[in-house]
Structures are given as structure tokens and as C-alpha cells.
């Protein structure tokens, strides 16, 4: 029972990382019409930046997280402005943006590989909350709690932003139609920049927290997150933050239990088969309500 509960929390925490990462990925896809495969590189870079700031400058962990989040956001905005902005208004559609994002994936991953010497690093255990919380029946790593809370706060915050604020309405409108967005009175440029920044920042947060929790910071970090986050977005529905969060957490739980009770070899396979099944049978996802318009 203890093992079951601990694994459940473990799964929720793992799934929270997928969800946190997937929120930004889905947001960019629904709002900006970009299937951005470089999204994982933001997470890698955020983790690397966080690690360097601890390693070289000895900043406290919260500051390292903030640096990673900010870094991820700024890289995302830069990528958007250099790579995707010139394509807007041109009818190269989704293909053009996808290829541009592949270009950035190659560039950012290569740079990250150089920066880390193609090795895996870890935060020194004294530099981040690496202890365990004793809840009587079970003991849970502090980082898992931090990850779960961070995901719920970010998911809730972004959901509120999209659903309850004027700029959120404009973001939804851009997803439908750029002209409609212009009519709402919000500068579409600001919507684009904000969306890109939020996406990069949440990806970065997932990167730093995931890198700390798994003690594995490398240029490869983003790739794993990308595939699982992508699955969370598809299963949850592209246009719905709540769907992404729920689907991400469910995926994490399933993965942990498949690995625990069946076999670790089927762990990834399970997620991908689920992903394909949803794409073919229910492309709107579990919770998606409408077809997205652009992309």
C-alpha cells in the first residue's frame, strides 16, 4: 500500500512535468499555429542556465529557477521573432513554421551540447530541496511536491489568464482569426510575444524542476519532455489547458504503474500508442471542444 501510494505520487509528479511542459506547447499550437519541436530545447536550456548559475555563482535554488524560467521565456521570444515572425503573413502555413522550428531544434540542441560538453550534470544535493517529507504512511521527495504545486499554480494561472482576462480573450481570438483579434483592440504583436514568452517560461520551469528532481541536466533533457508533453497535449485536447494538465498527470501515473507492474520496456510504448490512438480516433482529445482554426 505504501509502495502504491508513493508510486502514485511519483506518477503525479512525473505527469505534472509533462503537463507543465505541454501547457506551453499546446498554447503555441492553438494560438500561434506553430507545431514547435524546438519547445524541448527551451527546457534543456533553462535547466542548463539554472545549473550554471548555481555552479558558478552559487545563487540559491529559487533564483536558479527564476533564471531558468526567464531564460526559457527569452529564448522562446527570440526564436519566435527570428524564425516565425518572417513567416507570418506568408502562406507557407504549418510546414514552414515546423521546418523553422526543426532548424532551431538543431541549433539550440547543438549549442546546449557544446555548453554541457555533451555530459549530464546534476545540481549538488545541498543546493536544492532534496529532502523527503514524511507524511506518516508515506515519504515523498520535496521536489515532487514542488513540481506538483508549480504545475497546479501555473496551469490555474494560465487558464485564468486565457479565460478571464482581456488579453486572454485576444489570445483565443488570434487562435481563431488574426482579424478578429485585431478587432478586439489588443495589439496582436503583444499577444504573440506574450504567448511565446509564457510557453518558453513554462517549458523552462519544467526543465529546471525536472532537471533538479531527476538529477539529470543535459542537452537531451528536452527531447524526452517534448515527446511526453506532446502526448499530453494531444490526449488532453489542444485548446484546453485543463485537458493538458489532467492528461499529463494521467500519463505520468500510467507510465509509472506500467513500469512498476508490467515492464519498463512498455513504458514509453504505452504513451505513444495512446498518442496515436487519440490522433486517429479522437483528434480533439479527451477534453477538446472545437477544431482549432489555424496552423
Amino acid at each position, binding site marked *: 500500500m505504501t509502495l502504491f501510494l508513493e508510486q502514485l505520487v511519483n506518477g503525479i509528479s512525473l505527469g505534472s512535468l509533462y503537463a507543465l511542459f505541454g501547457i506551453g506547447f499546446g498554447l503555441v499550437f492553438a494560438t500561434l499555429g506553430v507545431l514547435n519541436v524546438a519547445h524541448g530545447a527551451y527546457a534543456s536550456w533553462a535547466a542548463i542556465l539554472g545549473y550554471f548559475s548555481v555552479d558558478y555563482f552559487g545563487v540559491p535554488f529559487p533564483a536558479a529557477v527564476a533564471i531558468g524560467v526567464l531564460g526559457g521565456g527569452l529564448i522562446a521570444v527570440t526564436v519566435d521573432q527570428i524564425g516565425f515572425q518572417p513567416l507570418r503573413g506568408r502562406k507557407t*502555413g*504549418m510546414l514552414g513554421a515546423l521546418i523553422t522550428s526543426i532548424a532551431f*531544434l538543431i541549433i539550440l540542441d547543438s549549442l546546449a551540447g557544446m555548453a554541457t560538453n555533451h555530459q549530464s550534470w546534476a545540481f549538488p544535493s545541498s543546493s536544492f530541496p532534496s529532502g523527503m517529507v514524511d507524511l506518516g504512511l508515506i515519504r515523498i521527495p520535496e521536489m515532487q511536491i514542488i513540481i506538483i504545486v508549480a504545475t497546479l499554480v501555473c496551469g490555474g494561472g494560465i487558464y485564468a489568464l486565457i479565460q478571464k482576462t482581456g488579453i486572454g480573450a485576444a489570445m483565443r481570438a488570434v487562435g481563431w482569426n488574426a482579424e478578429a483579434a485585431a478587432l478586439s483592440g489588443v495589439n496582436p504583436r503583444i499577444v504573440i510575444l506574450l504567448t511565446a514568452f509564457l510557453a518558453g517560461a513554462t517549458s523552462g520551469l519544467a526543465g529546471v524542476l525536472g532537471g533538479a528532481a531527476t538529477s539529470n541536466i543535459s542537452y537531451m533533457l528536452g527531447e524526452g519532455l517534448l515527446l511526453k508533453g506532446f502526448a499530453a497535449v494531444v490526449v488532453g485536447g489542444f485548446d484546453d489547458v485543463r485537458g493538458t494538465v489532467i492528461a499529463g498527470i494521467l500519463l505520468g501515473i500510467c507510465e509509472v504503474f506500467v513500469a512498476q507492474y508490467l515492464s519498463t520496456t512498455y513504458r*514509453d510504448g504505452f504513451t505513444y500508442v495512446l*498518442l496515436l490512438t487519440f490522433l486517429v480516433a479522437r483528434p480533439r482529445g479527451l477534453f477538446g471542444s472545437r477544431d482549432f482554426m489555424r496552423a
Partner: protein
Amino acid sequence: MEALLDFWYAYSATLAFGLVNSLFALSMYSVLSAGILSFTTVVFAAVGGFAAAQMMGTFGLPLWLAVVIAGLLGGLASAIIAALFLKLETHWMALASLALILISRVVVLNTPSLTGGVMGMVVPVRASVLELAVLLAIVSLVFFRLHKSWYGLAIRAVREDAAAASTMGVSARQIQMIAFLISGVVGGLAGAAMATTLQYISADTFYLGVAFTMIASTVLGGSFFWFGPIVGAFVFTALPTITQAVLPEIQDIAKGVVLLVIMIYLPRGLIDPRARGLRKAARQRQQSALNGSDAVEARPGSSTAGHAHD
């Protein structure tokens, strides 16, 4: 003569990979030219690659027979996948094809009796550069003929405006099905060519890396004419070799930067038949302006331009 031999030793590997990558790019081009963005070529190549490796390694079949079987099995795989995928809307198909690559990797890793599992497979036969060149020449001939045929005309129509094409009696579904089958066969051949060039294949051989190289080659060379993907594949294969001579650390970065620059400044790729027509029209406009005549009232960027990827 010696210099020539040195050159050959230094660059025959690059040439071989250029030929193999051309096959990958042509397989991708086959579906892309029907307006479909699908990365399933990687899956067809995995089928063909492991099949060829088994044929030659376990059953001792000769190279050419193994290659032909690889092509057929790639075609069979594409028939199954196309039946499943052609119902999907374009975006979903792109995503589903990526998901399929992830799944096939898991399958490859978990069926060691067929694929060697995590150990991968050693391929006992090596294809010579000449043999690869002959294979690419045959495939190119097929694309050349396709371009000149009714299929070539129909597939261009489907890509530019599938609805308008359908009101001319062109069945988009039929054309896209054929495109998938060709992609499958060529993808299977590409996998076999890859296997006999690397002489060692594993789950990582047919994964996202090759998918990205393949789309990059196709877009770089241009996806509006069959010769484009071949040019793109060779440029993309040679590029690391060139940058390695200058600055070894940046070869991957250079790859990304070139791709980025192409997308921003040359989105239709290096080989673009339409550009020739546009230049001709521009020349005529200039001439008639010089002659003071107003006969040509051209509208550049008119309503028909740029449906390319919608």
C-alpha cells in the same frame, strides 16, 4: 591520378550518404507533393532496412533481391498506414506520423528476434557507391516519368487546390493513396540502402534525426520538382563535411542556420520551376513598359499564388 584517388577516399562516404539521403528525401517528396506532410518515410525505411538486413544476414539472399523485397515491404507498410492516415486532416497526419516514428522505435527495441533489439544488427553486405547510384537513377527515372504523366499533372493540382482539382474529376484520395504507396516503396529502398551503407542498424538509425534531415533536404532543395530533393540531400549531406574542414564544432549549428536562412529567404527551395515563369513574366513586363505598351497588365501575387501548403 593519385590526387583523384585521395579525393575519392575522402569523399566517397559523403557521396554514398548523399545518394542514400536522396532516396529518403524522394520518399518524403512523394507525399509532400500531394500536399501531405508525413514523416512515415522513417517507418517505411525501418521496415525496409531491417528486412534487408535479415534477408542478407539470416537467409543469405543477394543484395539486389534483398533491396527489392525491402521496397515491396515498404510499400505494403505504406498501404496499411495510408488506409489509416488518409482520413486525417493534414495537421493531425503530421502529428500522427511523428507518433508512429516513436512507436516504431519502441517496437524495434522490443522485437529482438527481428531487429536485434537494443543491440541492433550488423549488415554483412556493403553496397558500393555505384550500386547506390544505379538505385537512385532508377528511382529518379520513375519520378521523371511520373512528372511527365497525367499523375504528375493531377498531383500538382491536388497539392495546390484539392477542392478545385476534385471538381475537375481528380480524386484527391486516389492520388494521395498512390503517393503514399510510392513513398512506401522508395522509403523501403532507402532503408535498405541505409542498412547496406552503414552496415550496422539499430532503433536509433530510423528515428527523429533522419526525419529531420529528410524534411530539411526536401525543403532546401525544393519540393516542387523531383530533382529538388536530390539537390537538397546532397547539399545537406555535404554541408557537415565542408564545415568540418573549417570549424568542426559548428557543423550541426551550420546545418540549422542554413535551414533557417532557406526558410526565411528561399521558402520554395533551390529548385523552383515556378520562379522561372515569374522571372519570364517580369522580363516581359519590363519590355512592354520600355515599349510604352500597356498590353500586359500582370498582377503579381494574384489570387492563385501561394496556396502551396494550405
